[in-house]
Protein backbone atom coordinates (compact mmCIF):
# COMPACT_ATOMS: atom_id res chain seq x y z
CA UNK A 1 0.00 0.00 0.00
CA UNK A 2 2.71 2.45 1.01
CA UNK A 3 4.49 2.03 -2.31
CA UNK A 4 1.31 2.65 -4.25
CA UNK A 5 0.89 5.80 -2.18
CA UNK A 6 4.46 6.74 -2.98
CA UNK A 7 3.76 6.37 -6.69
CA UNK A 8 0.65 8.51 -6.23
CA UNK A 9 2.70 11.09 -4.35
CA UNK A 10 5.27 11.34 -7.13
CA UNK A 11 2.63 11.61 -9.85
CA UNK A 12 0.73 14.27 -7.93
CA UNK A 13 3.97 16.20 -7.64
CA UNK A 14 4.44 16.12 -11.39
CA UNK A 15 0.87 17.22 -11.93
CA UNK A 16 1.29 20.23 -9.67
CA UNK A 17 4.57 20.98 -11.38
CA UNK A 18 3.23 20.67 -14.92
CA UNK A 19 0.03 22.61 -14.32
CA UNK A 20 1.66 25.75 -12.90
CA UNK A 21 4.03 26.26 -15.82
CA UNK A 22 3.55 29.87 -16.89
CA UNK A 23 0.83 31.92 -15.26
CA UNK A 24 0.21 35.65 -15.68
CA UNK A 25 1.55 37.74 -12.80
CA UNK A 26 -1.86 39.07 -11.85
CA UNK A 27 -3.06 35.53 -11.13
CA UNK A 28 -0.28 34.74 -8.65
CA UNK A 29 -2.25 35.88 -5.62
CA UNK A 30 -5.50 34.10 -6.56
CA UNK A 31 -3.52 30.97 -7.39
CA UNK A 32 -1.73 31.10 -4.06
CA UNK A 33 -5.04 31.51 -2.30
CA UNK A 34 -6.70 28.78 -4.38
CA UNK A 35 -4.00 26.19 -3.72
CA UNK A 36 -4.11 27.34 -0.11
CA UNK A 37 -7.76 26.37 0.04
CA UNK A 38 -6.99 22.96 -1.46
CA UNK A 39 -4.64 21.95 1.33
CA UNK A 40 -7.59 22.48 3.64
CA UNK A 41 -7.98 18.80 2.74
CA UNK A 42 -6.33 18.19 6.12
CA UNK A 43 -9.87 18.52 7.39
CA UNK A 44 -10.33 14.91 6.28
CA UNK A 45 -7.49 13.88 8.56
CA UNK A 46 -9.21 15.41 11.55
CA UNK A 47 -12.49 13.69 10.70
CA UNK A 48 -10.88 10.28 10.18
CA UNK A 49 -8.84 10.33 13.38
CA UNK A 50 -11.71 11.61 15.49
CA UNK A 51 -14.32 9.46 13.78
CA UNK A 52 -12.41 6.19 13.90
CA UNK A 53 -10.32 6.83 17.00
CA UNK A 54 -10.76 4.37 19.86
CA UNK A 55 -10.57 5.48 23.52
CA UNK A 56 -9.36 8.99 22.72
CA UNK A 57 -8.76 11.07 25.83
CA UNK A 58 -10.96 14.12 26.26
CA UNK A 59 -7.89 16.22 25.60
CA UNK A 60 -7.24 14.41 22.32
CA UNK A 61 -10.85 14.92 21.30
CA UNK A 62 -10.50 18.61 22.09
CA UNK A 63 -7.38 18.86 19.94
CA UNK A 64 -9.17 17.12 17.09
CA UNK A 65 -12.20 19.41 17.27
CA UNK A 66 -9.78 22.33 17.00
CA UNK A 67 -8.01 20.57 14.11
CA UNK A 68 -11.32 20.07 12.30
CA UNK A 69 -12.29 23.68 12.95
CA UNK A 70 -8.90 24.81 11.61
CA UNK A 71 -9.26 22.64 8.53
CA UNK A 72 -12.75 23.97 7.89
CA UNK A 73 -11.56 27.56 8.22
CA UNK A 74 -8.81 26.83 5.74
CA UNK A 75 -11.26 25.31 3.24
CA UNK A 76 -14.23 27.65 3.37
CA UNK A 77 -12.17 30.76 4.00
CA UNK A 78 -9.74 29.86 1.27
CA UNK A 79 -12.26 29.23 -1.46
CA UNK A 80 -14.38 32.26 -0.52
CA UNK A 81 -11.44 34.65 -0.48
CA UNK A 82 -10.18 33.31 -3.80
CA UNK A 83 -13.60 33.79 -5.32
CA UNK A 84 -13.81 37.37 -4.07
CA UNK A 85 -10.31 38.13 -5.33
CA UNK A 86 -11.09 36.80 -8.79
CA UNK A 87 -14.30 38.81 -8.74
CA UNK A 88 -12.11 41.89 -8.41
CA UNK A 89 -10.32 41.14 -11.67
CA UNK A 90 -13.41 42.22 -13.54
CA UNK A 91 -13.01 42.42 -17.29
CA UNK A 92 -10.31 39.81 -17.04
CA UNK A 93 -13.07 37.24 -17.25
CA UNK A 94 -14.33 38.74 -20.47
Amino acid at each position, binding site marked *: *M*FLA*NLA*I*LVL*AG*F*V*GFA*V*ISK*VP*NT*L*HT*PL*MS*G*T*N*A*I*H*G*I*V*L*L*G*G*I*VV*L*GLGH*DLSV*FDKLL*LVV*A*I*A*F*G*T*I*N*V*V*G*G*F*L*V*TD*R*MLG*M*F*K*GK*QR
Partner: protein
Amino acid sequence: MTGILVLYIVAFALFIYGLMGLTGPRTAVRGNLIAAAGMGIAVFATLLIPGVSNWVLIILGILIGTALGVPSAKQVKMTAMPQMVALFNGVGGGAVALIAWVEFNSTAGFTLEPEAHVVVASLFGAIVGSVSFWGSLVAFGKLQELIPGRPISLGRPQQIVNALVLVAALACAIAIGLGNGSPLLILGTLIFAAALGLLVVLPIGGADMPVVISLLNALTGLSAAAAGLALNNTAMIVAGMIVGASGSILTNLMAKAMNRSIPAIVAGGFGGGGAPGARELGDKTVRETNAADAAVQMAYANQVVVVPGYGMAVAQAQHTVRDMAKLLEDKGVEVKYAIHPVAGRMPGHMNVLLAEADVPYEQLKEMDEINGEFNRTDVALVIGANDVTNPAARNDPSSPIHGMPILNVDESKSVIVLKRSMNPGFAGIENELYYSPTTSMLFGDAKSSVESVIEELK
Protein backbone atom coordinates in the same frame (compact mmCIF):
# COMPACT_ATOMS: atom_id res chain seq x y z
CA MET B 1 -14.50 1.47 1.14
CA THR B 2 -14.49 1.06 -2.65
CA GLY B 3 -17.13 3.71 -3.18
CA ILE B 4 -15.24 6.12 -0.95
CA LEU B 5 -11.98 5.65 -2.82
CA VAL B 6 -13.75 6.23 -6.12
CA LEU B 7 -15.20 9.44 -4.73
CA TYR B 8 -11.72 10.44 -3.59
CA ILE B 9 -10.46 9.92 -7.13
CA VAL B 10 -13.28 12.06 -8.49
CA ALA B 11 -12.46 14.68 -5.87
CA PHE B 12 -8.78 15.03 -6.70
CA ALA B 13 -9.56 14.93 -10.40
CA LEU B 14 -11.73 17.99 -9.76
CA PHE B 15 -8.92 19.62 -7.75
CA ILE B 16 -6.55 19.23 -10.67
CA TYR B 17 -9.08 20.31 -13.25
CA GLY B 18 -9.97 23.31 -11.13
CA LEU B 19 -6.33 24.20 -10.65
CA MET B 20 -5.82 24.12 -14.41
CA GLY B 21 -8.71 26.55 -14.65
CA LEU B 22 -7.13 28.85 -12.06
CA THR B 23 -4.11 29.35 -14.31
CA GLY B 24 -6.13 31.22 -16.96
CA PRO B 25 -7.84 34.58 -16.45
CA ARG B 26 -10.94 33.50 -18.31
CA THR B 27 -11.39 30.18 -16.53
CA ALA B 28 -10.14 31.16 -13.08
CA VAL B 29 -13.47 31.77 -11.36
CA ARG B 30 -14.92 28.51 -12.65
CA GLY B 31 -11.74 26.68 -11.73
CA ASN B 32 -12.02 27.82 -8.15
CA LEU B 33 -15.63 26.63 -7.93
CA ILE B 34 -14.72 23.26 -9.45
CA ALA B 35 -11.96 22.77 -6.89
CA ALA B 36 -14.42 23.70 -4.13
CA ALA B 37 -16.85 21.11 -5.46
CA GLY B 38 -14.05 18.55 -5.31
CA MET B 39 -13.50 19.45 -1.68
CA GLY B 40 -17.17 18.98 -0.96
CA ILE B 41 -17.08 15.51 -2.45
CA ALA B 42 -13.94 14.61 -0.51
CA VAL B 43 -15.50 15.63 2.82
CA PHE B 44 -18.77 13.87 1.99
CA ALA B 45 -16.93 10.67 1.08
CA THR B 46 -14.97 10.79 4.34
CA LEU B 47 -18.15 11.05 6.39
CA LEU B 48 -19.34 7.86 4.63
CA ILE B 49 -16.42 5.83 5.97
CA PRO B 50 -17.97 2.88 7.83
CA GLY B 51 -17.63 3.13 11.60
CA VAL B 52 -17.23 6.88 11.85
CA SER B 53 -18.45 7.96 15.27
CA ASN B 54 -18.15 11.10 17.43
CA TRP B 55 -20.56 12.78 15.05
CA VAL B 56 -21.41 15.51 17.51
CA LEU B 57 -17.82 16.60 17.86
CA ILE B 58 -17.13 16.37 14.12
CA ILE B 59 -20.15 18.52 13.29
CA LEU B 60 -19.21 20.87 16.11
CA GLY B 61 -15.72 21.36 14.68
CA ILE B 62 -17.07 21.97 11.19
CA LEU B 63 -19.65 24.44 12.49
CA ILE B 64 -17.07 26.38 14.52
CA GLY B 65 -14.77 26.47 11.51
CA THR B 66 -17.52 27.70 9.21
CA ALA B 67 -18.71 30.26 11.75
CA LEU B 68 -15.19 31.68 11.98
CA GLY B 69 -14.12 31.26 8.36
CA VAL B 70 -17.05 32.52 6.35
CA PRO B 71 -17.52 35.96 7.91
CA SER B 72 -13.82 36.77 8.04
CA ALA B 73 -13.48 35.75 4.39
CA LYS B 74 -16.51 37.80 3.44
CA GLN B 75 -15.64 40.93 5.39
CA VAL B 76 -11.90 41.22 4.90
CA LYS B 77 -10.97 44.31 2.89
CA MET B 78 -9.44 43.49 -0.49
CA THR B 79 -6.22 45.18 0.54
CA ALA B 80 -5.98 42.88 3.57
CA MET B 81 -6.16 39.75 1.39
CA PRO B 82 -2.54 38.64 1.77
CA GLN B 83 -2.66 38.47 5.56
CA MET B 84 -6.01 36.67 5.37
CA VAL B 85 -4.48 34.05 3.09
CA ALA B 86 -1.60 33.77 5.56
CA LEU B 87 -4.03 33.13 8.38
CA PHE B 88 -5.99 30.47 6.48
CA ASN B 89 -2.74 28.83 5.47
CA GLY B 90 -1.51 28.86 9.06
CA VAL B 91 -4.54 27.10 10.52
CA GLY B 92 -4.16 24.42 7.85
CA GLY B 93 -0.63 23.76 9.04
CA GLY B 94 -1.84 23.89 12.63
CA ALA B 95 -4.43 21.21 11.94
CA VAL B 96 -1.73 18.88 10.60
CA ALA B 97 0.39 19.45 13.70
CA LEU B 98 -2.54 18.77 16.01
CA ILE B 99 -3.49 15.58 14.18
CA ALA B 100 0.08 14.33 14.47
CA TRP B 101 0.01 15.15 18.17
CA VAL B 102 -3.15 13.10 18.72
CA GLU B 103 -1.75 10.26 16.63
CA PHE B 104 1.17 10.26 19.03
CA ASN B 105 -0.99 10.25 22.13
CA SER B 106 -3.46 7.65 20.92
CA THR B 107 -0.70 5.21 19.98
CA ALA B 108 1.26 5.72 23.19
CA GLY B 109 3.94 7.57 21.25
CA PHE B 110 3.82 5.36 18.15
CA THR B 111 5.05 2.48 20.33
CA LEU B 112 2.03 0.44 19.22
CA GLU B 113 2.50 1.57 15.65
CA PRO B 114 4.22 -0.97 13.43
CA GLU B 115 4.92 0.77 10.14
CA ALA B 116 7.95 3.04 9.98
CA HIS B 117 6.67 5.30 7.25
CA VAL B 118 3.62 6.21 9.33
CA VAL B 119 5.83 7.41 12.17
CA VAL B 120 8.14 9.35 9.87
CA ALA B 121 5.26 10.94 7.97
CA SER B 122 3.46 11.94 11.17
CA LEU B 123 6.54 13.54 12.68
CA PHE B 124 7.33 15.33 9.43
CA GLY B 125 3.77 16.62 9.47
CA ALA B 126 4.13 17.72 13.10
CA ILE B 127 7.29 19.74 12.45
CA VAL B 128 6.37 21.29 9.10
CA GLY B 129 2.80 21.94 10.19
CA SER B 130 3.93 23.72 13.31
CA VAL B 131 6.52 25.79 11.45
CA SER B 132 3.89 26.81 8.92
CA PHE B 133 1.35 27.68 11.63
CA TRP B 134 3.61 29.99 13.62
CA GLY B 135 5.37 31.36 10.56
CA SER B 136 2.03 32.28 9.03
CA LEU B 137 0.91 33.98 12.23
CA VAL B 138 3.99 36.20 12.10
CA ALA B 139 3.35 36.98 8.44
CA PHE B 140 -0.22 37.88 9.34
CA GLY B 141 0.95 40.04 12.22
CA LYS B 142 3.40 41.92 10.07
CA LEU B 143 0.98 42.66 7.25
CA GLN B 144 -1.76 43.54 9.73
CA GLU B 145 0.82 45.78 11.44
CA LEU B 146 0.30 44.07 14.79
CA ILE B 147 4.05 43.47 14.58
CA PRO B 148 6.36 46.08 13.03
CA GLY B 149 6.83 45.26 9.35
CA ARG B 150 10.56 45.96 9.43
CA PRO B 151 12.96 43.03 9.88
CA ILE B 152 13.21 41.92 13.52
CA SER B 153 16.46 40.01 13.64
CA LEU B 154 19.04 38.72 16.09
CA GLY B 155 21.59 40.00 13.58
CA ARG B 156 24.66 37.86 13.01
CA PRO B 157 23.81 34.83 15.17
CA GLN B 158 20.34 34.52 13.62
CA GLN B 159 21.29 31.77 11.18
CA ILE B 160 23.13 29.76 13.84
CA VAL B 161 20.22 30.03 16.27
CA ASN B 162 17.77 28.90 13.58
CA ALA B 163 19.99 25.94 12.79
CA LEU B 164 20.22 24.95 16.47
CA VAL B 165 16.46 25.15 16.96
CA LEU B 166 15.91 23.01 13.88
CA VAL B 167 18.36 20.44 15.19
CA ALA B 168 16.56 20.42 18.55
CA ALA B 169 13.21 19.77 16.85
CA LEU B 170 14.69 16.98 14.74
CA ALA B 171 16.39 15.48 17.81
CA CYS B 172 13.07 15.19 19.64
CA ALA B 173 11.45 13.68 16.55
CA ILE B 174 14.25 11.15 16.11
CA ALA B 175 14.05 10.16 19.77
CA ILE B 176 10.37 9.43 19.24
CA GLY B 177 11.17 7.55 16.07
CA LEU B 178 13.60 5.42 18.01
CA GLY B 179 10.74 4.33 20.25
CA ASN B 180 10.79 6.71 23.18
CA GLY B 181 7.13 7.44 23.88
CA SER B 182 7.52 10.27 26.40
CA PRO B 183 4.86 12.96 25.83
CA LEU B 184 7.52 15.58 26.52
CA LEU B 185 9.23 14.66 23.28
CA ILE B 186 6.26 15.41 21.02
CA LEU B 187 5.73 18.67 22.89
CA GLY B 188 9.39 19.45 22.36
CA THR B 189 9.10 18.69 18.66
CA LEU B 190 6.10 20.96 18.27
CA ILE B 191 7.52 23.78 20.38
CA PHE B 192 10.96 23.84 18.77
CA ALA B 193 9.27 23.74 15.36
CA ALA B 194 7.09 26.66 16.46
CA ALA B 195 10.17 28.60 17.56
CA LEU B 196 11.73 27.89 14.18
CA GLY B 197 8.67 29.27 12.41
CA LEU B 198 8.89 32.50 14.43
CA LEU B 199 12.65 32.85 14.10
CA VAL B 200 12.63 32.38 10.33
CA VAL B 201 9.81 34.78 9.48
CA LEU B 202 10.39 37.59 12.00
CA PRO B 203 13.60 38.83 10.31
CA ILE B 204 11.87 39.08 6.94
CA GLY B 205 10.65 42.51 5.86
CA GLY B 206 6.92 43.07 5.42
CA ALA B 207 7.30 43.61 1.70
CA ASP B 208 8.66 40.12 1.13
CA MET B 209 5.69 38.60 2.90
CA PRO B 210 3.70 37.62 -0.20
CA VAL B 211 6.57 35.38 -1.24
CA VAL B 212 6.98 34.02 2.29
CA ILE B 213 3.27 33.25 2.51
CA SER B 214 3.47 31.38 -0.78
CA LEU B 215 6.42 29.44 0.61
CA LEU B 216 4.55 28.55 3.80
CA ASN B 217 1.60 27.60 1.62
CA ALA B 218 3.74 25.05 -0.21
CA LEU B 219 5.02 23.75 3.14
CA THR B 220 1.50 23.25 4.47
CA GLY B 221 0.73 21.34 1.30
CA LEU B 222 3.67 19.02 1.92
CA SER B 223 2.64 18.50 5.54
CA ALA B 224 -0.88 17.65 4.38
CA ALA B 225 0.55 15.08 1.96
CA ALA B 226 2.61 13.61 4.80
CA ALA B 227 -0.49 13.36 6.99
CA GLY B 228 -2.18 11.63 4.08
CA LEU B 229 0.61 9.06 3.91
CA ALA B 230 0.35 8.47 7.65
CA LEU B 231 -3.41 7.98 7.47
CA ASN B 232 -3.25 6.18 4.10
CA ASN B 233 -5.71 8.72 2.68
CA THR B 234 -5.36 9.07 -1.10
CA ALA B 235 -7.22 12.37 -1.35
CA MET B 236 -4.96 13.98 1.23
CA ILE B 237 -1.82 12.66 -0.44
CA VAL B 238 -2.77 13.94 -3.87
CA ALA B 239 -4.22 17.29 -2.83
CA GLY B 240 -1.37 17.99 -0.43
CA MET B 241 1.34 17.07 -2.89
CA ILE B 242 -0.19 19.06 -5.71
CA VAL B 243 -0.17 22.14 -3.50
CA GLY B 244 3.34 21.34 -2.35
CA ALA B 245 4.64 21.15 -5.90
CA SER B 246 2.66 23.96 -7.50
CA GLY B 247 3.21 26.14 -4.45
CA SER B 248 6.97 25.80 -4.71
CA ILE B 249 6.93 26.83 -8.36
CA LEU B 250 4.52 29.67 -7.65
CA THR B 251 6.87 30.94 -4.94
CA ASN B 252 9.67 30.98 -7.48
CA LEU B 253 7.58 32.81 -10.06
CA MET B 254 6.57 35.45 -7.52
CA ALA B 255 10.12 35.97 -6.35
CA LYS B 256 11.28 36.32 -9.97
CA ALA B 257 8.52 38.79 -10.80
CA MET B 258 9.89 41.21 -8.21
CA ASN B 259 13.34 39.97 -8.92
CA ARG B 260 14.29 38.61 -5.53
CA SER B 261 15.73 35.16 -4.82
CA ILE B 262 14.14 32.78 -2.29
CA PRO B 263 17.40 32.26 -0.35
CA ALA B 264 17.91 36.02 -0.16
CA ILE B 265 14.37 36.43 1.12
CA VAL B 266 14.65 33.72 3.77
CA ALA B 267 18.03 35.14 4.78
CA GLY B 268 15.88 38.13 5.67
CA GLY B 269 16.76 41.68 6.61
CA PHE B 270 15.52 43.09 3.30
CA GLY B 271 12.46 44.98 2.19
CA GLY B 272 11.72 46.91 5.36
CA GLY B 273 11.52 49.91 3.11
CA GLY B 274 13.54 53.06 3.70
CA ALA B 275 16.73 51.14 4.27
CA PRO B 276 19.31 53.57 5.73
CA GLY B 277 22.18 54.99 3.69
CA ALA B 278 19.96 55.14 0.67
CA ARG B 279 19.74 58.89 0.88
CA GLU B 280 23.05 60.28 -0.52
CA LEU B 281 21.47 62.94 -2.72
CA GLY B 282 24.81 64.26 -3.83
CA ASP B 283 24.37 67.71 -5.41
CA LYS B 284 21.46 66.60 -7.59
CA THR B 285 18.52 68.96 -7.32
CA VAL B 286 14.83 68.13 -6.98
CA ARG B 287 12.12 70.29 -8.49
CA GLU B 288 9.18 70.71 -6.14
CA THR B 289 5.71 71.72 -7.29
CA ASN B 290 2.37 72.46 -5.64
CA ALA B 291 -1.19 71.26 -6.10
CA ALA B 292 -2.17 74.36 -8.09
CA ASP B 293 0.55 74.03 -10.71
CA ALA B 294 0.04 70.28 -10.94
CA ALA B 295 -3.69 70.83 -11.50
CA VAL B 296 -3.09 73.35 -14.29
CA GLN B 297 -0.46 71.15 -15.91
CA MET B 298 -2.85 68.23 -16.07
CA ALA B 299 -5.90 70.27 -17.02
CA TYR B 300 -4.18 71.39 -20.21
CA ALA B 301 -2.77 67.97 -21.08
CA ASN B 302 -4.14 65.79 -23.86
CA GLN B 303 -3.20 62.53 -22.12
CA VAL B 304 -2.47 61.88 -18.45
CA VAL B 305 -1.23 58.46 -17.36
CA VAL B 306 -1.72 57.65 -13.68
CA VAL B 307 1.00 55.34 -12.32
CA PRO B 308 -0.24 53.95 -9.00
CA GLY B 309 2.03 52.14 -6.55
CA TYR B 310 2.28 50.92 -3.01
CA GLY B 311 1.91 54.47 -1.73
CA MET B 312 -1.58 54.75 -3.14
CA ALA B 313 -2.51 51.58 -1.27
CA VAL B 314 -1.04 52.92 1.98
CA ALA B 315 -2.87 56.22 1.57
CA GLN B 316 -6.07 54.42 0.46
CA ALA B 317 -6.25 57.09 -2.22
CA GLN B 318 -7.86 55.00 -4.98
CA HIS B 319 -11.32 56.59 -4.72
CA THR B 320 -9.93 60.14 -4.60
CA VAL B 321 -7.75 59.37 -7.61
CA ARG B 322 -10.78 58.09 -9.43
CA ASP B 323 -12.67 61.35 -8.72
CA MET B 324 -9.73 63.41 -9.97
CA ALA B 325 -9.65 61.36 -13.17
CA LYS B 326 -13.37 62.07 -13.65
CA LEU B 327 -12.77 65.81 -13.38
CA LEU B 328 -9.92 65.64 -15.87
CA GLU B 329 -12.03 63.67 -18.32
CA ASP B 330 -14.76 66.30 -18.06
CA LYS B 331 -12.08 68.75 -19.17
CA GLY B 332 -11.46 66.53 -22.19
CA VAL B 333 -8.23 65.02 -20.89
CA GLU B 334 -7.59 61.37 -21.75
CA VAL B 335 -6.77 59.46 -18.55
CA LYS B 336 -5.22 56.01 -18.41
CA TYR B 337 -3.80 53.90 -15.59
CA ALA B 338 -0.46 52.11 -16.01
CA ILE B 339 -0.50 48.84 -14.06
CA HIS B 340 2.89 47.36 -13.26
CA PRO B 341 2.61 43.62 -12.49
CA VAL B 342 4.36 43.98 -9.14
CA ALA B 343 3.29 47.47 -8.15
CA GLY B 344 2.12 47.43 -4.56
CA ARG B 345 2.78 44.51 -2.30
CA MET B 346 0.97 41.64 -3.94
CA PRO B 347 0.56 40.71 -7.60
CA GLY B 348 -2.57 42.35 -8.92
CA HIS B 349 -2.62 44.73 -5.92
CA MET B 350 -3.34 47.73 -8.14
CA ASN B 351 -5.99 45.95 -10.21
CA VAL B 352 -7.78 45.10 -6.98
CA LEU B 353 -7.62 48.63 -5.55
CA LEU B 354 -8.72 50.36 -8.72
CA ALA B 355 -11.45 47.79 -9.41
CA GLU B 356 -12.65 48.53 -5.86
CA ALA B 357 -12.87 52.20 -6.84
CA ASP B 358 -14.82 51.21 -10.00
CA VAL B 359 -12.21 52.52 -12.40
CA PRO B 360 -13.46 51.44 -15.84
CA TYR B 361 -11.58 48.31 -16.86
CA GLU B 362 -10.70 49.71 -20.29
CA GLN B 363 -8.60 52.42 -18.61
CA LEU B 364 -6.32 49.90 -16.85
CA LYS B 365 -3.33 49.26 -19.14
CA GLU B 366 -0.85 46.44 -18.56
CA MET B 367 2.82 47.41 -18.61
CA ASP B 368 3.62 46.17 -22.13
CA GLU B 369 0.52 47.88 -23.47
CA ILE B 370 1.24 51.30 -21.97
CA ASN B 371 5.03 51.49 -22.22
CA GLY B 372 4.79 52.37 -25.90
CA GLU B 373 2.51 55.28 -25.08
CA PHE B 374 4.55 57.30 -22.58
CA ASN B 375 6.35 59.27 -25.30
CA ARG B 376 2.87 60.41 -26.41
CA THR B 377 1.94 61.28 -22.82
CA ASP B 378 1.94 64.86 -21.54
CA VAL B 379 1.81 64.14 -17.82
CA ALA B 380 2.71 60.90 -16.02
CA LEU B 381 1.18 61.19 -12.54
CA VAL B 382 3.14 58.82 -10.30
CA ILE B 383 1.10 58.19 -7.14
CA GLY B 384 3.14 56.42 -4.48
CA ALA B 385 4.98 54.32 -6.98
CA ASN B 386 8.74 54.21 -6.86
CA ASP B 387 10.73 51.09 -7.77
CA VAL B 388 8.45 50.21 -10.67
CA THR B 389 9.36 53.55 -12.26
CA ASN B 390 13.08 53.52 -11.44
CA PRO B 391 15.15 53.87 -14.65
CA ALA B 392 18.07 52.26 -12.81
CA ALA B 393 16.39 48.93 -13.56
CA ARG B 394 17.16 49.67 -17.21
CA ASN B 395 20.38 51.69 -17.06
CA ASP B 396 22.34 50.71 -13.96
CA PRO B 397 23.65 47.11 -13.99
CA SER B 398 24.89 47.56 -10.41
CA SER B 399 21.37 48.34 -9.15
CA PRO B 400 19.71 45.58 -7.08
CA ILE B 401 16.59 45.89 -9.22
CA HIS B 402 18.50 45.89 -12.51
CA GLY B 403 16.71 43.75 -15.08
CA MET B 404 13.26 44.19 -13.57
CA PRO B 405 10.93 45.46 -16.34
CA ILE B 406 9.68 48.94 -15.41
CA LEU B 407 7.16 51.52 -16.57
CA ASN B 408 9.04 54.01 -18.76
CA VAL B 409 7.46 57.13 -17.22
CA ASP B 410 10.72 58.98 -17.84
CA GLU B 411 9.84 58.98 -21.55
CA SER B 412 6.74 61.12 -21.04
CA LYS B 413 6.88 64.89 -21.59
CA SER B 414 6.57 65.63 -17.87
CA VAL B 415 6.32 63.60 -14.66
CA ILE B 416 4.60 64.55 -11.39
CA VAL B 417 5.48 62.34 -8.43
CA LEU B 418 3.23 62.18 -5.35
CA LYS B 419 5.03 60.89 -2.27
CA ARG B 420 5.63 62.05 1.26
CA SER B 421 9.39 62.38 1.24
CA MET B 422 12.52 61.45 -0.63
CA ASN B 423 12.48 58.08 1.10
CA PRO B 424 13.10 55.13 -1.14
CA GLY B 425 10.58 52.35 -1.72
CA PHE B 426 10.56 48.63 -1.19
CA ALA B 427 13.97 48.05 -2.74
CA GLY B 428 15.42 50.78 -0.54
CA ILE B 429 17.28 52.50 -3.36
CA GLU B 430 17.55 55.97 -4.87
CA ASN B 431 15.34 56.79 -7.85
CA GLU B 432 17.14 59.06 -10.33
CA LEU B 433 13.78 59.77 -11.95
CA TYR B 434 13.13 62.34 -9.18
CA TYR B 435 16.18 64.33 -10.26
CA SER B 436 15.33 64.49 -13.95
CA PRO B 437 14.51 68.01 -15.23
CA THR B 438 11.12 66.84 -16.53
CA THR B 439 10.11 65.57 -13.08
CA SER B 440 8.47 67.63 -10.36
CA MET B 441 7.65 66.33 -6.88
CA LEU B 442 4.40 66.99 -5.01
CA PHE B 443 5.22 65.97 -1.44
CA GLY B 444 2.62 64.81 1.05
CA ASP B 445 0.29 61.93 1.70
CA ALA B 446 -1.04 60.72 -1.64
CA LYS B 447 -4.68 61.07 -0.62
CA SER B 448 -4.45 64.62 0.69
CA SER B 449 -2.30 65.69 -2.26
CA VAL B 450 -4.83 64.37 -4.72
CA GLU B 451 -7.64 66.01 -2.75
CA SER B 452 -5.98 69.41 -2.98
CA VAL B 453 -5.42 68.88 -6.70
CA ILE B 454 -9.14 68.22 -6.98
CA GLU B 455 -9.85 71.46 -5.16
CA GLU B 456 -7.73 73.31 -7.70
CA LEU B 457 -9.42 71.57 -10.63
CA LYS B 458 -12.89 72.64 -9.50
